[in-house]
């Protein structure tokens, strides 16, 4: 859907899409359900309950509704047929119950039958008027001809944007909070200082990591991501230490800072969205050892490889960098808005000069 809206806007391939704002859609659905309920009641066909109506108003599909069963529907249909209820009865019922606009609208629809204008080729009704191949023929004669987006429509297309805000991102993240809390516990155990053990690899996590963001953009739980890295490091006989940094949300610095704290001089930095780096303490901020920048397609096995490679660098081995094969997925456009908001959530939590904290992580519910 978003993709088509972009095509409409940037290529002026007008598909006639003009999304409704959510509150307007809910208003319309509420009114529609109320109108139909009123007709049912007025005609003595049925009396839908508040719960039935509410479930239909907010449903994304019929599976989510608690409405009439097929048997109920058959019964209602049967009495409509038996009593010969017609559209005129429905129009009257609507008007009687105060749905004048709906009554007028329904009448205008059945009036179409009288003239038959809508029976002509490619007819449709726009704003109450019939438009068809007769009065709006296809005049396409090659590029530059045919339907052109009008200036007015162009401005309308340009202004279409479904608003995704921080609140919405946090709301959808919060859905995973409870599940995550059953899998992992983060406990602050004091200020993180310089390590001395050469076997130590520090994993630097971002401010929002597991705090109010719980999934990577690929949909992996952060507990699973962390566990894969920790296990891979431990598998090489090294000691993973987890440190939360609150002074930055930037991947490069999230990688360099733990490298500086690590006894081995090798650190991993990871943001809540899953972007990660392996860094070495004697490198420039952006000159990392490995960068995992394609979070939307980064799998758990890649995070495992990341941990293993960090361990290898700590052991002074030349690791084979983890390769993530892409097939040219257009990740950017799909994730831009969400990622920008996620990053704003991260930086919103940062405090200048905030000292890093050692975090004791407890993985629960499975053997470690």
């Amino acid at each position, binding site marked *: 859907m978003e993709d088509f809206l972009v095509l409409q806007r940037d290529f002026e391939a007008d598909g006639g899409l003009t999304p409704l704002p959510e509150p307007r859609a809910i208003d319309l659905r509420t009114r529609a359900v109320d109108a139909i309920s009123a007709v049912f009641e007025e005609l003595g066909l049925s009396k839908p309950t508040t719960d039935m109506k509410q479930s239909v108003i907010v449903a994304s599909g019929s599976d989510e509704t608690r409405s009439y069963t097929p048997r109920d529907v058959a019964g209602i249909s049967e009495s409509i047929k038996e009593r010969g209820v*017609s*559209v*005129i009865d429905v*129009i*009257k019922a609507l*008007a009687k119950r105060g749905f*004048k606009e709906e*009554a*007028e609208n329904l*009448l205008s629809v*059945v*009036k*179409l*039958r*009288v*003239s*038959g*204008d809508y*029976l*002509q*080729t490619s007819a449709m009704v726009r704003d109450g*008027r*019939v438009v*068809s*191949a*007769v*009065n709006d*023929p296809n005049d396409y004669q090659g590029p530059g001809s045919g339907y052109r987006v009008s200036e007015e429509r162009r401005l309308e297309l340009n202004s279409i944007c479904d608003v995704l805000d921080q609140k919405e991102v946090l709301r959808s993240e919060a859905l995973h909070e409870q599940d995550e809390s059953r899998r992992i516990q983060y406990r602050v155990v004091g200020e993180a200082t310089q390590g001395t053990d050469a076997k130590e690899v520090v994993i630097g996590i971002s401010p929002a990591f597991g705090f109010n963001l719980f999934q990577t953009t690929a949909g992996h739980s952060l507990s699973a991501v962390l566990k894969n890295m920790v296990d891979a490091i431990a598998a090489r006989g090294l000691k993973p230490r987890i440190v939360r940094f609150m002074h930055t949300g930037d991947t490069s610095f999230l990688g360099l800072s733990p490298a500086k704290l690590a006894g081995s001089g090798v650190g991993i930095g990871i943001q809540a969205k899953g972007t990660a780096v392996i860094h070495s303490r004697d490198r420039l901020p952006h000159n990392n050892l490995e960068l995992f920048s394609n979070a939307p397609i980064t799998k758990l096995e890649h995070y495992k490889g990341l941990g293993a490679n960090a361990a290898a660098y700590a052991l002074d081995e030349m690791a084979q960098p983890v390769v993530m094969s892409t097939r040219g997925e257009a990740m950017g456009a799909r994730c831009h808005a969400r990622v920008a908001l996620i990053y704003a959530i991260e930086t919103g939590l940062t405090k200048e000069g905030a000292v890093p904290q050692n975090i004791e992580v407890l993985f629960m519910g499975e053997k470690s």
Partner: protein
Amino acid sequence: MTGKLTIADYPLAETRSSGIRGRRGKSLDEITLAAVLSGDVTMEDLRITPKALADQAEISRSAMRPTLALNFERAAELVDVPQDFIMSVYELLRPGRANDKQKLLDVARAFRKTYKAVCMASFIEEATEVYERRGLFLRGF
């Protein structure tokens, strides 16, 4: 050919809303919500007439769509044909439903004699020839 409707007369509901009438002669202008509420409108007022369908046929021809125009002309003939008969013919026209051409020829005669539907009659007769050529009478489905 003067007096025929053209695409300039389309849509009829807009260009001649007082001239378009339902089966009881009530014009589109008279079919208002107030009239519905006072009980002055019946389902008959909301049914298309042979005249309106013939008008649409003229418009189709003017829009260079002669085949659609023929369709409208047949539809105009069908307005007064009972629903049950139309449905039985519809069923009979499916492949293999009529076992021989006589069944369809009987239908054609009924259209011509009983319902004065000459376009429909010749349409069915044409179908009979095609069905025979394509072997659609004998094959059972």
